[in-house]
């Protein structure tokens, strides 16, 4: 991958993540038992970035996505929620990905990401409300996170297998 190709690829991934996030925000939550739980489809992009780019470049995708989503109709508090969730889940996913493709699949990586995203958001929520009992909400959210993590993992797996360019980038990443 040349430097320009990589730059364009990072920008493409970031913009796709922003669009997916914005569309998802306008869909009402399908989980009546867990208000605030989202499907987290923007995670597809983060997972693909981790599998096709170096950790530093994948971090750039996540950072760009965070700032752009905040600028496009977010507030400081939604930025704090999404930032803590996204940063925590990115760190977790990078670590799990380091286990190697023979040990852990994309599904494992995306489930970790979805779970840590919830942990980060609940930590910020309990910090804002000054009570730790918000964390009692975690089991319900984890159930949703495992389901959506599997969905995101399967989707990302199909994309990385059948989209030729992504498959090639993944091959480059694994061989380097």
């Amino acid at each position, binding site marked *: 991958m040349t430097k320009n190709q990589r730059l364009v690829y990072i920008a493409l991934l970031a913009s796709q993540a922003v669009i997916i996030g914005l569309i998802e925000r306008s869909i009402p939550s399908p989980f009546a038992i867990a208000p605030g739980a989202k499907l987290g489809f923007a995670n597809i992009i983060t997972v693909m970035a981790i599998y096709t780019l170096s950790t530093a470049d994948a971090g750039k995708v996540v950072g760009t996505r965070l700032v752009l989503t905040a600028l496009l109709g977010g507030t400081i508090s939604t930025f704090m929620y999404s930032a803590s969730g996204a940063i925590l889940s990115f760190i977790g996913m990078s670590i799990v990905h380091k286990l190697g*493709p023979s040990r852990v*699949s994309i599904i494992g990586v995306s489930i970790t990401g979805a779970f840590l995203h919830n942990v980060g958001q609940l930590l910020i929520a309990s910090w804002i409300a000054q009570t730790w009992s*918000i964390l009692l909400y*975690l089991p319900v*959210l984890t159930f949703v996170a495992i389901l959506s993590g599997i969905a995101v993992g399967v989707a990302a797996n*199909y994309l990385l297998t059948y989209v030729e360019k992504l498959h090639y980038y993944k091959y480059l990443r694994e061989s380097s």
Partner: protein
Amino acid sequence: MKVFHMFKFWDWIIIPLIILLSFLPSVVFTYQQGSVSADSNLEAVVSVDNEEIERIPLTGHEGNEILDIPEVPCDTNTVQLQDEQIRIQSSDCPDQVCVLTGFISTPGETIVCLHHRVVIEIEAEDGHVENEILSY
């Protein structure tokens, strides 16, 4: 390509690990509540913006009562006290988490409205005093 075949060995370690971790806060909270004695007086502490507004004694309360606390911005006349339970019965916030929480009555339980930054928490008034007496 079957979905089931996508899973690898470590996935089956990660999923139970995550489920166990998600119950960690519940375990810690139950453990903490074990130290509160059963006959202590319970109070509902209403706070807005991290500032304590009102303490409502719950133990021994009987009947249905609607409290008028103007500092709670969720709705007018929204805090309902029924016997030894308390709840927020209506709110104009978008997620309605506080209303869906329903009645709370045991120490450590909370009603949280992030939108209006309202927290109602049940506290045991003299739960820790008893432990000290025991240690003399």
